[in-house]
Structures are given as structure tokens and as C-alpha cells.
């Protein structure tokens, strides 16, 4: 069963989180993400959850990570400037394998930039923003419906792989109002618990250790220092560091097939749009308007880890066109994985590409 609502993207995001069992939100107001925090402030106390407005974004993400160690599904929401402040503790969450969800409603940067305008300028920052080698998961919603669904899904991915998971939205999706079908329940994949007596940071074949929830007698020491399988600091042994970092990266990258989530239109196409987030809406209209089997589309719902194999589904592709609200961040990633030319179609300033503009570019390659 579903019920129909007419919601703003940010509200759908908050409701998706609540449906997924999120019971802790720590945040700091910032446009264009603030409605997520405001909605959580209204809703969480009524359902036995905790909302806390922290003193800044460093504290917000810290509180979220702390909350997660009690076994609570936890999240924060922010935008560019706040996202930059979170980077060090995001690295801590990666190193300590703490599941958490971070919503970034992207706005124009660098710096304070364009607080009220859309952007996708943080796609590389979410992937590489914290220091050291690492991997994370990022989803990118293209509708209010997906703000709900992908936020809920982000909690499952975070818990399954014990890695910070990003909802990389943008101002357009976050502030638009759209019809949404709200399901009665969403799928919940629980965090796998550590077996009593097992080493807390020893992983099985999938590279993901069981989770030793605080307060259950595991007596686990959690540190951002390089640590061994007991969780004990071991920061000068090259082998320990090498094994740990390769496992942290491998558990995400090697699972990219099982977590792949994308949409293919016209798989035999020669000219293929690759998009995610709000530009995917323009692409959808363009492909429909052009009504030509030689023009196709790959739309990513999970952007990181990047599904390189999805590009290879287009056997006849002669060019990949990548419209983004940045100067070509995911275009650069796509180019790494294919010998077919990849052409970025950047749009800065907060306006979407128009279908007419995209059609004209596509025509040029037919």
C-alpha cells in the first residue's frame, strides 16, 4: 500500500530517513538543507528519537558517529561549507567503519558561493574529501520520490558495508514539490552484529566485520589510528596499515556490482547521456523528445562506487555526453573506464540544462 503526498524534496528526505528507522539527527542549519533538520526536530522527539542542533558541523558529524556506536541509525544534513567542515570526521567514520548517513544538498561553491542555487560541485569532495585512501558510497536522487527512497536505501547501504553513505542531492530536487507515493514500509537491512568473543575488526570474506554495539559487553576500543583486528593501535607496522586500508577500500569497490543501481534507456544507442541527480530530468525529456534509438541514457542512482561496467552495456556507443552542474567531475570518472570519448556538458550558476540545448548537442554527434 502507498499513500499520495505532495512534498518538498527535503521533507521526503527526512521522512525516508524516519521510515528507515533513523532515530538520531545531529545538525547545524545551512541553506538549502535546513528543512531536513527542521522536519527532524519536529518529528524525532515524538517517536522516541533524538534531535540535537550542534554548535557547528564538526560537532554534528561527531555526534552522529557517537550515536551510531550505540546501534542507532543516525544522520546529518548539510551543504557545501558545512560539508567541508565535516571532512576530518568523515575520515574517522571510514577508518572506524561507522555506519552513518550524510545528506549534502549541494549549492554553488567554492566558499559561500550560491546558497540558494543548485550545484553538483561536491561529487568529488564526497569521494576524496577526507585525507588518505578510502572509498565511500553515494546515491543521487533525481526526484522527490527518490529523495525518500534513496535516503532510506542509504541507511541500508551504510549498515551493510559499515561505511559513511552520502545522499548527494541538489537545491533543485531539495526544494521542488512533487507528487510522491509514500510506501507503508521500506526494506530494512540490519547491521550485522559482532559475535560475542570475536575480534571486533576481523572481517569475513566480504571485508565487513560484525558491529560491536556499545553497552553490550564487547569492550571494544575504537580508534582512528591504524589498528589491528583487536582494534588496538598499531600505527607503525607497514603490513597492518596496508591490509587495513586495502580492506576498507576493497569492501566497497568490490561490492560495486551488488550495489549497482542505474537505469538504461536505448542500450543500442550510439550517443549516450550519462547523468545523475536533477540534470537526469532534462536528459529524460531530451531522449523522449528526440525519439531516436541512436540516442540513449544511463542514469546513475548509486554514483559511488562508480559502476564502470554500466558504460560497457552500451556496445554501440560512439560518445558519452555527461551533463552535470559542475565542470565535469563525473565525466572525468567515466572517462577513466572507457575508450569511447566522454564529453562533459557543464552548467554552472544554478540553472538546469534545457532539453533543447542537450538535443542540439546530441544532434551534433549523430
Amino acid at each position, binding site marked *: 500500500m502507498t499513500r499520495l503526498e505532495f512534498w518538498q524534496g527535503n521533507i521526503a528526505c527526512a521522512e525516508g530517513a524516519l521510515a528507515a528507522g533513523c*532515530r*538520531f539527527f*545531529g545538525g547545524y542549519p545551512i541553506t538549502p538543507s535546513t528543512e531536513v533538520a527542521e522536519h527532524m526536530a519536529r518529528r524525532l522527539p515524538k517517536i522516541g528519537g*533524538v534531535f*540535537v542542533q*550542534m*554548535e*557547528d558541523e*564538526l*560537532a*554534528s558529524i*561527531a*555526534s*552522529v*558517529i*557517537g*550515536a*551510531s*556506536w*550505540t546501534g*542507532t541509525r*543516525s544522520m546529518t544534513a548539510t551543504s557545501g561549507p558545512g560539508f567541508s567542515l565535516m571532512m*576530518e*570526521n568523515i575520515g*574517522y567514520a571510514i577508518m572506524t567503519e561507522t555506519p552513518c548517513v550524510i545528506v549534502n544538498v549541494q549549492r554553488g561553491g567554492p566558499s559561500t558561493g550560491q546558497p540558494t542555487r543548485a550545484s553538483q560541485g561536491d561529487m568529488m569532495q564526497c569521494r576524496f574529501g577526507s585525507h588518505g585512501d578510502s572509498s565511500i558510497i553515494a546515491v543521487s536522487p533525481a526526484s522527490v520520490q527518490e529523495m525518500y527512497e534513496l535516503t532510506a536505501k542509504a541507511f541500508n547501504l551504510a549498515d551493510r558495508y559499515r561505511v559513511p553513505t552520502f545522499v548527494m542531492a541538489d537545491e533543485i530536487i531539495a526544494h521542488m514539490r512533487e507528487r510522491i507515493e509514500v510506501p507503508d514500509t521500506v526494506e530494512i537491512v540490519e547491521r550485522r552484529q559482532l559475535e560475542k568473543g570475536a575480534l571486533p575488526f576481523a572481517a569475513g570474506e566480504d571485508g565487513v566485520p560484525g558491529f*560491536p554495539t*556499545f*553497552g*553490550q*559487553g*564487547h*569492550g*571494544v*576500543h*575504537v*580508534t*582512528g*589510528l591504524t589498528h589491528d583486528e583487536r582494534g*588496538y*593501535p598499531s600505527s607503525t607496522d607497514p603490513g597492518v596499515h596496508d591490509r587495513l586500508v586495502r580492506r576498507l577500500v576493497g569492501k566497497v569497490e568490490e561490492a560495486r556490482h551488488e550495489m549497482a543501481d542505474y537505469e538504461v534507456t536505448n542500450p543500442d544507442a550510439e550517443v549516450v547521456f550519462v547523468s545523475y541527480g536533477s540534470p537526469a530530468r532534462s536528459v529524460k525529456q531530451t531522449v523522449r523528445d528526440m525519439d531516436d534509438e541512436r540516442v540513449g541514457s544511463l542514469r546513475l542512482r548509486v554514483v559511488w562506487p562508480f559502476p564502470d561496467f554500466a558504460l560497457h552495456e552500451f556496445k554501440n556507443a560512439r560518445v558519452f555526453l555527461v551533463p552535470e552542474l559542475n565542470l565535469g567531475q563525473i565525466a572525468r570518472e567515466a572517462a577513466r573506464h572507457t575508450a569511447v570519448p566522454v564529453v562533459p556538458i557543464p552548467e554552472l550558476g544554478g540553472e538546469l540544462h534545457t532539453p533543447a540545448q542537450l538535443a542540439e548537442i546530441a544532434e551534433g554527434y549523430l
Partner: protein
Amino acid sequence: MKDFREWLREDRMPHIYCTGCGNGTVINCTLNAVNQMGWEPENTVFISGIGCSSRAPGYIITDSLHTTHGRAIPFATGVKLCRPDLHVVVFTGDGDLAAIGGNHFIHACRRNIDLTVVCMNNYIYGMTGGQGSPCTPLGAISTTTPYGCDEAPFDLASLATAAGANYVSRWTSYHVKELTRAVKAGLETPGLSFIEAMVQCPTGYGRRNKLRDARLMVQWMRDHSVLMKKWKQMEAEGRPLPEDKFPVGEFVRRHRPAMGVPEE
């Protein structure tokens, strides 16, 4: 537990602390107080930032978070708000708490969240090799104040008091019994409890400041601390307060509204 030493994680010994370091004294006093509370390790969590002082939780058998520099308190806030029934103790240093983490410190005092924060104030950055901290005394030599510190230091206990903490006291590693009692009083008081423990860092501070070894440093703290009662009396009588001395004892014990307190 019968003895506070049972809280120590023995398979992590030997520890990293230098000979004569004051941090061990504070860890012992704190564990002694925790043990006297009758708490169980399953229900107790230690959380810290980065620094020599912040290595303490790694030597304790409970669940623990050794977090990022300055951020122990907001991590602890997340734990405590989700599980008010857990006892959460924060270990921190003067740099961790008052420099990089200063904002979190005053906001935690304002919120009066039910944590006990034990700061090992060695008035120096020990871990990174003896740089000046916000608590380095005027004139003191550090690697970043080679001509003498020309910035006035923070008075951490007064800062916590002004910011709203429910319980605040300061002692030194010389005052072992008083320090243990103060930590216990902090653990008993709902809301934020702040215990400033002045400690010696012979490696980063003492040897550059004519206090060659731990013994001289502890003697210095004994001779330069003044009991709160006497300090207040001097204040009341309008006598000049000695600039090279500091008060020790209880700064405040009160019942401002608090957060994260377990329901009875």
C-alpha cells in the same frame, strides 16, 4: 569489581607514557572513582580526543572511542543522548579541550549534558613535542614560545563554571585523594561535570622550564596551589591574589537544567 586496577586493559601494557608523566595518576584516580561508584564496565564508556592524555581510553577495558583532535565531547554527546543509561566519561588534554575543541567545551557546559570531563592539563602540547597551548603560563618556554609565552592562559575551571557546568573542580597530580573524591563527585552530579587535573609533563614542559624531573614538577604544583577556602578568603579580604598561584578545590556544584540524564 574489587579493585580499580581490574578496569585496566592489561594486554595493552606497556603504555606509551614517559617516565614521570602525570597522566597515569589521573587515570588511576578516575578509575578508582568509577569503581567506587559500583559501575560495571559494560555500562561505562570512555571517550577522548587526540593527545597523550587522550590515549587513556585505550588502556581501559570498557567500550571506548579515541576520536579526532578536539572533538571528544560532541562524539560523547551522540552516545549519551542515545543511551542516557550509559555512564560516559571524557578524557582530554588542555590543547584538545581548550584550543581546537574550545567551542565544543563551552557548548557542552551550556547544554549541561550529563558527561564527566576529566582534563589532564599539563599546560603544553605533550604528544607533538612540547608546543605552547592555551594553558601555557606567561613567560614559559615551549618549542613555539622559545622566548617565553606572551599570551595569557585560560583558566579552564572558571571557564567551565561561567559556561554553566553543574560541577567543576580543580586539583593536581599531587592531590591524589582530593582528585579521586572530586571525580567521584563529578560522576554523581547530573549534568556536565568538569574536573581539571593539573599534571606534570616532564618531557614537553619541565625540562625546558627549570623543572628537571617529575618530582620537581609535582612539588611546584603543591607549592603553587592554594586551597579554595583560603583563596576565597584572600579575595573577600581584598588581598592581592598571587599571580604565580592558582586555587584548587571545588568551583561550583549546582543544579542547572541538564540534558541526557537517565530517567530514575
